[in-house]
């Protein structure tokens, strides 16, 4: 069982430069735990004591996990998880 996790440029120093890595888990929290085992240090860049870090956005198949179930969001084989830093977007 593998889930593709897309890594933003700024965090690729933890993944040997890889744009996307595979990880496993039944929830986002487990997935991030598995990522940490494979790429030590990454977990702290994504979460803190309060949950997902304020300026980190995580999307499950393009939907923001904060509206799905946060770190408890179920994930499954074939899903794509995208990590992005928060930026100002939209037509301003």
């Amino acid at each position, binding site marked *: 069982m593998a889930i593709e996790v897309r890594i933003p440029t700024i965090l690729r120093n933890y993944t040997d430069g890889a744009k996307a890595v595979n990880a496993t888990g039944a929830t986002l929290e487990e997935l991030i735990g598995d990522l940490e085992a494979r790429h030590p240090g990454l977990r702290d860049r994504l979460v803190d004591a309060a949950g997902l870090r304020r300026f980190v956005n995580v999307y499950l198949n393009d939907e923001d996990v904060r509206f799905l179930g946060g770190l408890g969001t179920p994930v499954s084989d074939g899903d794509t998880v995208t990590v992005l830093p928060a*930026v*100002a977007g*939209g*037509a*301003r």
Partner: protein
Amino acid sequence: MRFDSLIDSVGRTPLVGLPRLSPSAEVRIWAKLEDRNPTGSIKDRPALWMIEQAEKDGLLTPGCTILEPTSGNTGISLAMSARLKGYHLICVMPENTSEERRQLLRMWGAEIISSPAAGGSNEAVRVAKGLAAEHPDWVMLYQYGNPANWRSHYESTGPEILADLPTVTHFVAGLGTTGTLMGVGRFLRERVPGVKIVAAEPRYGELVYGLRNVDEGFVPELYDESVLTTRYSVTSADALRRTRELLATEGIFAGISTGCALHAALGMARKAVEAGERADIVFVVADGGWKYLSTGAYEGTLGEAEDRLEGQLWA
């Protein structure tokens, strides 16, 4: 329709059905044509509300200089109002925004200060905040944190949609300053039980995100997560594809951020069909395609257009 002046004609835009893109008679998609505002974008509403609030508060008096970080549309709207009302306008704009926007701003008499492409609008906000600190006499309206931004949509865009379509079930718009979603969202939530408020966030290429540390991100002060039902991240490829689809199937020539919102609207339509529920989904056409012709978004294959957009702020 008759108005006393151009400024008085802001708003009251058409809401048009999309019979070819709507999946069925029970699940319908509607476009709110904000390109029909005086300077061609939805930003005429917040620009006018922010200026008039600052006038009421005594912050703006004739001859004042207005400073604003903007990727274009807000600047163009402010430039028009500033010209008519006698203010000087300085816009801080990321250098990777389209040439049309720069020309339009100059035409209306605005001064442009460029901010570095890397970091996109975050960087423009940072530069503008620095300039504001150096020039306390300049008035920064600051669309990302000015409550008059969301109030413009609470008081105009939202009521217009509900009056035209009392059966509305979903509202979908691009997420930038978050003003449109916060204002329309709050208005509809107070009046339409169960209404879904959906954000479509543009996902840019590497350059825009590339150099930002995850601790230096930016969330607009106006953003209140509790107003939204959900939030989608839409790639340039999907936004471009939908922008072209809207033109090809319904004849609407819109900017690329509209394709972003349409992509999310079609996703919600598919969910409603699967759930066997009726839906009236309103999405925002934030502006027309004119200002993006030079980006090459409408020519050649989608792949070519996507390559040309890489590194540009298309919304």
